[in-house]
């Protein structure tokens, strides 16, 4: 074991007003035989895996004397603390404490609800039990039709909400992404408690000169389905889906968020299913993310009181988001009112 070099002290600040939800703790491939420390929503966690099983997300420090569990080893399907060899099973209960007559009662490590899906370890943050399901993204399931795909990962200082609301922010498309056409946002009827769905359409987008001879864009459509913590998007060109996207977040602490996800481009016989479209899409995605991140880098939270009619999309999303961040939501105020009466 080598000596860990000292890092400068940091004060962990919890991300302000973060919604309850499923966040990515780390990639599945990042958790192998050794446990791995992560920070999600200001919480120090350790992710480990017993054999071939699903990853377990647990509080990072041993309840006994506070040693960091990522220095420990996995023995008989339990995580063994390096300091006094206490063992914790996948449910967090202490299953061995050497040299004690019996295992101390009531000692357990806090295990957070987690799921392994689409190459990520998802952890539920905000309450003891998940209040809505983790993402369902059939395009990456084993039986999915033929496609090309890539995953992406970017770091930003913006909050999780800022990233999720971006698709609903209609007036930023012409300015940041240079889409010089009329955009229209329609709310989809498939909204529920934890999902906000909308459709953003552009009719007859003029293409630059060499491209307009090859193809024409009669209408371009972006389907957005967002929960308070992750998002799925579908791009449609002239009625055919071009790309499906899963957008996930790791909010480490205030002012530190990692956005990650997958883009799936279906293969199809027409022009839209070709490698050229895949790489073209990937290039525009990269450029688009780059321009968004440049804005995110220096963005500051406002009180949200200065708005125009174009901002209806963002405002509705924020209203939806507030219900899940436990601040000023309808349910919350109702609960509080009931509590006081």
């Amino acid at each position, binding site marked *: 074991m080598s000596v*860990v070099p*000292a890092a400068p002290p940091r004060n962990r600040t919890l991300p302000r007003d973060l919604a309850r939800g499923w966040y990515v703790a780390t990639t599945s491939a990042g958790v192998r035989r050794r446990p791995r420390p992560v920070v999600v929503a200001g919480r120090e966690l350790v992710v480990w895996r017993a054999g071939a099983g699903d990853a377990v997300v647990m509080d*990072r420090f041993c309840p006994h004397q506070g040693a*960091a569990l990522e220095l420990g080893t996995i023995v008989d399907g339990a995580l063994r603390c390096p*300091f*006094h060899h206490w063992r914790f099973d996948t449910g967090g209960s202490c299953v061995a404490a050497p*040299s*004690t007559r019996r295992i101390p009662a009531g000692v357990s490590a806090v295990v957070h609800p987690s799921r392994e899906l689409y190459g990520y370890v998802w952890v539920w943050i905000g309450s003891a039990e998940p209040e809505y399901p983790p993402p369902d993204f059939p395009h990456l399931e084993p039986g999915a039709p033929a496609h090309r795909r890539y995953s992406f990962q970017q770091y930003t200082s913006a909050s999780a909400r800022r990233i999720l609301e971006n698709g609903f922010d209609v007036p930023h498309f012409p300015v940041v992404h240079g889409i010089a056409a009329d955009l229209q946002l329609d709310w989809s009827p498939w909204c529920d408690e934890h999902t906000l769905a909308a459709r953003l359409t552009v009719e007859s987008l003029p293409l630059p000169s060499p491209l307009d001879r090859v193809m024409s864009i009669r209408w371009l459509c972006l389907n957005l389905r967002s929960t308070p913590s992750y998002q799925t998007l579908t791009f449609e060109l002239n009625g055919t889906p071009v790309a499906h996207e899963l957008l996930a977040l790791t909010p480490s602490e205030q002012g530190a968020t*990692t956005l990650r996800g997958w883009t799936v481009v279906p293969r199809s016989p027409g022009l839209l299913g070709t490698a050229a479209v895949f790489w073209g899409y990937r290039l525009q995605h990269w450029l688009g993310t780059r321009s968004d991140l440049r804005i995110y880098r220096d963005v500051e939270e406002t009180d949200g009181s200065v708005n125009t009619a174009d901002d209806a999309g963002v405002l509705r999303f924020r209203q939806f988001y507030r219900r899940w961040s436990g601040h000023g939501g309808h349910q919350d105020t109702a609960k509080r009112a009931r509590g006081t009466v």
Partner: protein
Amino acid sequence: MTRAAARREAAPDTQDISRRSALPPNPDGANIAASWYVATRSGLLRTRPHRMRLFEREVVLWRDGAGVARCFAAHCPHQGANLGLGDVVDGELRCPFHHWRFDGHGVCTAIPGVSRIPSTARTRSYPTREAYGFVWVWYGTPEPLFELPDFPPMTDDKGSYAGFFYDDRTTGTVRQLLENAVDHQHFSALHGLDLDDVDFRVLGDQAEASDNGCPVSAEDAWFGVWFAGTPWRPPLRRSPLAWITAVVATFAMGRRMELLVDGWPGGQRFTAYVDGTEVYKVLMGIVPEGNRATRQVGWAGVRRTGRWYRTALNYLLFYVQNRAGTSQDVPIYDSTRSAQPVVYVRYDNGLVRFRRYYQAWVERAADERAAGS
């Protein structure tokens, strides 16, 4: 600087924060008890002032005309310049900025161009001692509450030992480094010593620790434990690693190892025996630089056996043991969550008592801590 380098400078370690191991919480801060602490090795303090961080503040160490080591708060009371940038002139420390001079007690003795020296022109001077190859500084109260304890292997009994100095940096706390010797259960878990017939006792009387040196001058500043165990030694062929661990731990001199540890709130003395024969002694001091910046320093040496090859073997085995043990302990110190609710079990009894004793001495330094912040 290129633009890429400038960008890296602007956001040095915020990238990919979720993947890196972070320093764990430590709400109590450095939590330093009133005691003697090591500042530096004697040999490193020569004619130039030596500036360093100690007790979460800046200090300057220097030698006066008689060669006595002095420790001052680093900033000149006049315009706040760091005295460590100054020099020693006629046995006095001279500030680099306006050449005010301070004597060994921190009192200003000369101001160029001024005949009447203000009575407030003095800098905080910490009591110091020089012993066992180190400069020791008292922290916590204006005057020491006990004398710097005795360590015979580096004074009266110097010829009987062969040893080495060590210096290990960690982001752990002072208390963590000291309580490690009290936490005997970690010997078997962390260090892999499979022990039979474990015996552990918190000592009640300083006379029981007389092998470590003269008693500590204040009875309540003393804390001692005694530990014994027999490392399990399987046949070499069945489990070579366990066999080697057991043989190294007992220096191939016997079966039963004993460890006598005693100390004061800022340091410890160790004597180890195998089958009742003394093998080595250790002095451990702490350099409490600040919150999550601590060094454990000291001297460790084996007792000469009379046969040079046996002494050399013991020295080698002890060196390996000491360094290997430290390399297992330091990552734990670096990453442990401190000063948060913990679970105590039966074998943590000594630890609980040590923590109570240690915190009582932290209380005695309350005024000093308030003055520093």
